[in-house]
């Protein structure tokens, strides 16, 4: 008998259970109930987010595949397409940082190569609690080495990402991994189970009792029972995955198969039912044939296992031998476990008995959808209440504090653990605004970036959503690339709470608005709810991944100043925007105020100007102004030049000095140029209707800023550079 307790264990409500009974016309057995529990979980079904995600623009003339497949696909011309997707692995990374993060990388890689694409780059967006706490430190150390161990071994470069620190992530780190692949247009593959009688093959690792209920775990808060949820963590095997990549790409290139799907969350259950659903067919499998790592596994366990590095393939009937030979070459078995059937049923046998007999439609399409209650959270009022910000009289010290805050400090400690050069395409290494990857033998290149400031989204969710998109696009503009497609990972608290749902809706609206303004499609993404531990939610954290195209790779621009004596020009305007700034947070200890308000029209003009100036070859460096404001931006431009010279700035705005130095007004870019190009640059700015002001000159050993007739900053560059570079290594020093 199914009682309340059993339903609770399966994370199903009694209404949901009644609906199941109605749909299948009988009571489900326990294996079937497990299947519904997984497939109707928030993680797999998007039941709370669906209604809001509709707001996102998903079409465009270059979109080959929008949301709904393993990854999105954009046509980039010359017969090529770019395939990309982002995924979260937050809960597992908290429980077991190393393996949680590693298997996150493994999972997103499978999403890309199942589409026939060779993965060419990974990026990671990480959020941790303050490093003064040794637990957070251990989580970060484990996560970074987990990502590095998997990505490096498999030979996909991790070329960028971002890391932010905030108290809200202390018991809830975020690990979002973004993967990009390239495929020839006519070689794209989909998760299809077409052709009645076609064999279903199981390849890759054996099935064990791993992560049973992982998807349900990602669909519930962590509470007291954390310990019990622990065994849901899997160990990644990048070597196995490497074999899978090569073998799968080979059978796909030879067109020996019909469709392919990885077994990620919800394992065999999800792969069989999704493949069948997309093709209007059914699938029949025999669990006795499924390779198993442990003895005595029940059908329930086999169907729900989340063992990593497994794929399900529907092969062409007459090509099975050939498929198996290719897998054998890579020391892998391709085991024939079932076939495609007519009639839309998932039928599973074990020991000669039918243990699952469910209509695909009930599992996938008829899952409940919720329009949950919304409520504007009450914290906003007090957080927005304006209060005087004390003026400091030591800006040198303030800048040093900022530079050595974990969020702004150099992330070299992180990315030097990642092989970011393998595949020899990385032209702009991590450290730039966006990473640039050449496409061998082509003139054009890809530029990729990730962004998402959750403090903005916490203090004004809609603005935060907009800014995340705008800043990611601005990062691309700074290297000379035009955005072509967006993916997003939305990390939030418990959607059953009206305040969280409101944050979600607002952020999504903001993202939608910005994507419409930029006219770029969202081709997919991921929603991670229930990022709460013992009732404390994380800040709403949208992470935006954008892929762009650089028409001529040789014109890529990097953020570091290039030569002494160059003119420094600020694109955009300095305003009094200290609310929600990193300065308030790390120097004055306040997470308050209104974030900067973005004018998307102004933003687009700034970016278009930057792109044109780069294509004309009249700027030598470009770096956007974001967290830390103008002073930090210019400091980074100095740090990133190899000759280690400083600069002198004298901006003439009538503003509070702290706002001028550290305010986070949007749509600003700092560029540098040789004196002979200054006039052309200013003329172009006029033509493009953007504000451009000469604010200083590169050179000297110090970073000097004058404002309102006073020298407000004057520090030896090498000294602060050591501070900025040394912050994370100092935290993680081996004693």
């Amino acid at each position, binding site marked *: 008998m199914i009682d309340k307790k059993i339903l609770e264990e399966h994370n199903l409500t009694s209404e949901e259970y009644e609906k199941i009974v109605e749909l299948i016309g009988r009571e489900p057995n326990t294996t079937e109930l497990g299947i519904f529990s997984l497939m109707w979980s928030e993680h797999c079904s998007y039941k709370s987010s669906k209604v809001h995600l509709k707001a996102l623009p998903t079409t465009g003339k270059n979109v080959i595949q929008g949301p709904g497949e393993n990854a999105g696909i954009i046509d980039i011309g010359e017969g090529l397409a770019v395939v990309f997707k982002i995924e979260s692995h937050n809960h597992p990374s908290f429980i077991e940082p190393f393996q949680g993060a590693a298997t996150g990388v493994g999972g997103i890689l499978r999403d890309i190569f199942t589409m026939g694409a060779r993965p060419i780059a990974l990026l990671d967006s990480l959020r941790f609690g303050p490093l003064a706490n040794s637990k957070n430190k251990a989580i970060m150390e484990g996560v970074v080495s987990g990502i590095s161990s998997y990505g490096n071994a498999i030979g996909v470069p991790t070329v960028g990402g971002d890391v932010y620190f905030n108290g809200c992530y202390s018991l809830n780190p975020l690990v979002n991994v973004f993967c990009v692949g390239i495929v020839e247009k006519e070689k794209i593959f989909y998760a299809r189970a077409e052709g009645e009688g076609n064999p279903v093959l199981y390849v890759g690792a054996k099935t064990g009792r791993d992560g049973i209920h992982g998807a349900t775990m990602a669909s519930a808060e962590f509470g007291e029972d954390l310990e019990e949820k622990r065994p849901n963590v*899997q160990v990644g095997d990048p070597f196995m995955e490497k074999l899978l990549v090569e073998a799968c790409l080979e059978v796909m290139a030879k067109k020996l198969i019909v469709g392919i799907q990885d077994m990620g969350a919800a394992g065999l259950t999800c792969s069989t039912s999704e493949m069948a659903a997309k093709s209007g067919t059914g699938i029949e499998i025999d669990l006795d044939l499924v390779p198993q790592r442990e003895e005595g596994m029940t059908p329930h366990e086999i169907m729900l296992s989340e063992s990593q590095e497994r794929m399900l393939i529907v092969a062409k009937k007459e090509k099975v031998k050939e498929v198996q030979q290719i897998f054998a070459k890579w020391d892998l078995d391709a085991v024939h476990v079932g076939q495609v059937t007519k009639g839309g049923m998932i039928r599973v046998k074990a020991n000669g008995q039918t243990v699952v007999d469910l209509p695909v439609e009930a599992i996938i399409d008829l899952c409940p959808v919720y329009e949950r209650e919304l409520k504007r959270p009450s914290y906003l009022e007090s957080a927005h209440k304006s209060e005087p910000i004390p003026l400091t009289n030591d800006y040198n010290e303030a800048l040093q504090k900022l530079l050595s805050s974990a969020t702004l400090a150099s992330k070299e400690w992180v990315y030097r653990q990642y092989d970011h050069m393998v595949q020899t395409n990385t032209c702009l290494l991590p450290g730039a605004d966006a990473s640039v990857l050449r496409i061998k033998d082509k003139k054009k290149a890809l530029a990729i970036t990730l962004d998402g400031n959750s403090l903005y989204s916490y203090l004004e969710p809609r603005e935060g959503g907009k800014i995340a998109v705008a800043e990611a696009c601005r990062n691309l503009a700074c290297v000379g690339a035009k955005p072509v497609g967006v993916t997003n990972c939305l990390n939030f608290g418990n959607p059953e709470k009206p305040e969280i749902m409101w944050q979600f809706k607002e952020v999504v609206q903001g993202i939608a608005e910005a994507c419409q303004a930029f006219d770029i499609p969202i081709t997919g993404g991921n929603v991670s709810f229930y990022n709460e531990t013992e009732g404390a939610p994380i800040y709403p954290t949208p992470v935006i991944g954008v892929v762009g195209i650089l028409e001529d790779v040789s014109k890529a621009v990097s953020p570091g100043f290039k030569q002494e004596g160059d003119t420094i020009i600020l694109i955009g305007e300095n305003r009094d925007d200290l609310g929600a700034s990193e300065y308030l947070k790390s120097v004055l200890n306040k997470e308050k105020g209104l974030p900067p308000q973005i004018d998307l029209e102004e933003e687009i003009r700034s970016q278009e100007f930057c792109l044109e100036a780069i294509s004309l070859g009249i700027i030598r460096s470009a770096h956007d102004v974001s967290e830390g404001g103008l002073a930090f931006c210019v400091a980074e431009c100095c740090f990133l030049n190899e000759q280690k010279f400083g600069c002198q700035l004298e901006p003439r705005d009538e503003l509070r000095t702290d706002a001028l130095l550290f305010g986070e007004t949007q749509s600003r870019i700092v560029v540098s140029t040789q004196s002979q190009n200054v006039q052309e640059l200013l003329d172009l700015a006029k033509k493009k209707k953007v504000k451009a002001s000469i604010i200083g000159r590169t050179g000297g050993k110090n970073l000097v800023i004058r404002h309102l007739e006073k020298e407000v900053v004057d520090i030896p560059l090498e000294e602060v550079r050591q501070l900025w570079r040394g912050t994370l290594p100092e935290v993680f020093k081996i004693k």
Partner: protein
Amino acid sequence: MKVRILVSYKDSVLDPQGQTVKNALHTLGYNFIEDVRQGKIFELDLKELSPEEVEKVIPEISDKVLANPIIEKFSWQIIDKSQTREGREKIST
């Protein structure tokens, strides 16, 4: 005194390292090997502690620092010469 702590994946957890070693050994013809599990070992030199102290402190250290109880298990032994001989320990040179 010397304590040896062995840390390895729980039996239900996949051990890719052990699997790879097993496959390599099979390729080399050692087919009588049915399974391999790989783990870590820590040899600790300690100040002399009472048996009760050891009983308390070693599991504590293992749980807190050496093993991740979520996926790993540990076992430990006090090593003394006589036992080692009994255990037919051999050091290759």
